[in-house]
């Protein structure tokens, strides 16, 4: 059962990711953005399978919600119809596919060598107590006093403030 659901979500994620990058039917950035939403939702399904429930919810809220809406806003703000008509260079696409594909094969062979022996690995996984990333568990490990991540959390809040001020400065009509 779990294996079937994994296959569905993994296949959907990889397939729609391919359609983001190289869609044979459409050169429109809006299509790419919508397929990226499908990828994000499939990845969130994988997170649920891995017991990371809070991150699955955050993935949908932040990526499928906020980030993709921002992308669609910008796509529609910029008039990109001229770019859509340009053809993808087939030679460069084939060369890029070969380069990235061979990189992936190197990665796959190393993963197979390290984790290919499933029986041994499942024994290890059964010995470890499987963690569940519920909101409570994640919050406790984020904010606990001795092993927590309070300083990184505060730094990230400053980073968000800096990003917000920077965006407002960048998108002014006339520079300061």
């Amino acid at each position, binding site marked *: 059962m779990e294996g079937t659901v994994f296959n569905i979500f993994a296949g959907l994620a990889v397939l729609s*990711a391919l359609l983001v990058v190289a869609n044979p039917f459409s050169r429109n950035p809006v299509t790419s953005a919508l397929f990226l939403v499908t990828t994000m939702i499939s990845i969130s399904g994988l*997170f649920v399978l891995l017991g*990371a429930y809070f991150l699955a919810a955050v993935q949908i809220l932040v990526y499928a919600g906020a980030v993709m809406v*921002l992308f669609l806003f*910008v796509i529609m703000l910029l008039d990109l119809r001229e770019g859509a008509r340009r053809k993808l260079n087939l030679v460069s696409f084939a060369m890029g596919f070969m380069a*990235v594909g061979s990189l992936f094969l190197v990665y796959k062979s190393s993963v197979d060598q390290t984790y290919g022996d499933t029986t041994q690995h499942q024994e290890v996984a059964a010995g470890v107590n499987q963690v569940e990333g519920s909101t409570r*568990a994640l919050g406790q490990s984020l904010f606990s006093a001795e092993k927590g*991540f309070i300083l990184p959390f505060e730094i990230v809040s400053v980073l968000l403030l800096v*990003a917000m001020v920077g965006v407002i400065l*960048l998108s002014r009509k006339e520079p300061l």
Partner: protein
Amino acid sequence: MEATLGHYLLVSGALFAIGLLGVIVRRNLLIIYMSLELMLNAANVALVAMSRFNGNLDGQVMVFFVITVAAAEVAVGLALIVALYRKRQTAEVADLATMKL
């Protein structure tokens, strides 16, 4: 068939490879940016899988930070693209080959 850590790592590697392909072959700034997001998400899948199969929640905390930083990065990057489009009226990298604005 139970999905093992190896399977999750393969999915993550495939997503990362597709994102890299997009950054290499596509010429539209926005699609390059979406491919970057795809690569960040591939790293997130690997981190969550490692966290699950090693019984340690720290990987998920890391993903939490990655998502936050990615959201800030998207906002700044898209503002830069809009500012660039105002100056040059294009979002194709082939037309942005000069260093002078």
